[in-house]
């Protein structure tokens, strides 16, 4: 039973035998020693001919994920966000939450658009929820982070540059954290949509958290030369 409770995928299969369980549960199935390459998803790259010295000719390649596709609305950032939201392998629910949030963004922006009277006001309103999402994530990315360093028995918090991968993670974390601060009867996608729109205008709780971190970085600027 413990196996079933650990993996929501298997539990869903237990309840509904028609549902498929395709998720890789744990560990990579690709051996590190055989040097697997990542699959190519870009359509242009797939159609272009391979050169003779291309690595893809002689090295094994990983299978594409089931979420990879060549559709126009394919967005790796949103895919990553769904993975960030996911709990216990229940991607179905995570996907539903993100889609509902984006839909709510669209509805809120459309309401604003129809309320606006002049053409100038209407032209300013962004209606594409995907663009709003990427803008919101961009505005929440921190420039620096703090790392704890012990020097002579005293602990200092040293501001250091961040890798882009961690920047996006931090932005996601703050956005979700801000969306979770809500009343009990409001849904997560409603609060998330509002938070996304606020963050795209560089307002709201998530952006404020980023500014707070920058402020502490400024206070600890003197320790920047300490070794990390």
């Amino acid at each position, binding site marked *: 039973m413990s196996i079933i409770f650990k993996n929501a995928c298997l539990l869903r299969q237990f309840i509904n035998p028609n549902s498929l369980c395709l998720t890789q549960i744990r560990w990579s199935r690709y051996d590190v020693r055989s040097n697997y390459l990542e699959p190519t998803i870009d359509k242009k790259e797939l159609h272009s001919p391979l050169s003779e010295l291309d690595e893809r000719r002689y090295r094994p390649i990983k299978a594409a994920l089931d979420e990879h596709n060549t559709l126009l609305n394919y967005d790796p950032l949103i895919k990553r966000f769904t993975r960030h939201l996911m709990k216990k392998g229940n991607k179905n629910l995570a996907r539903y939450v993100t889609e509902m949030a984006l839909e709510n963004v669209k509805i809120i922006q459309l309401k604003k658009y129809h309320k606006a009277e002049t053409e100038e006001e209407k032209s300013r309103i962004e209606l594409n929820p995907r663009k709003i999402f990427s803008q919101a994530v961009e505005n929440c990315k921190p*420039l620096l982070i703090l790392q704890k360093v012990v020097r002579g028995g005293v602990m200092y918090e040293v501001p250091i540059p961040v890798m882009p991968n961690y920047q996006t993670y931090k932005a996601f974390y703050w956005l979700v954290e801000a969306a979770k601060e809500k009343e009990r009867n409001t849904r997560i996608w409603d609060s998330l949509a509002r938070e996304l729109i606020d963050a795209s205008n560089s307002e709201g709780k998530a952006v404020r958290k980023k500014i707070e971190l920058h*402020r502490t970085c400024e206070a600890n600027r003197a320790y920047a*030369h300490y070794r990390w």
Partner: protein
Amino acid sequence: MPRLTDIEFAKRVVSKFENYARRPAYRGIFRRDLLPKALNNTVSTKGRVSQEKPCISAISLMLVCLEKHDYIQSRCSTEIQQFNDCMKKFEAKKKAKQNVEEKGLLSGRGRIQPDRLNEFLSRYPQPRETPDQY
């Protein structure tokens, strides 16, 4: 299905306060010097912490600008751009060094780096010793 607890109890009589005392440290079998000597498939990577501190002046310039303009990033776009360019340059330099290591196996000092050595050892491990050898 047989219960393991019954089998376990059959082997020895459990006295009342057995758990109170500490077990003797019986390490005779696992002592290293008694084991047959064999080479490991890893080397230590202890001294391999990067001690470079890139773009400190760019960081301080950026923070001063941010403080001046109430932490609004759009007003300090030039400083942020400079910082990002500096970081990109540093990353490119790091990557170039890595590429040289990968191609020629050797770093500037003329030694194989431990990370690289571990990679190779995992790909081509030491041959297993047969029991006849000892």
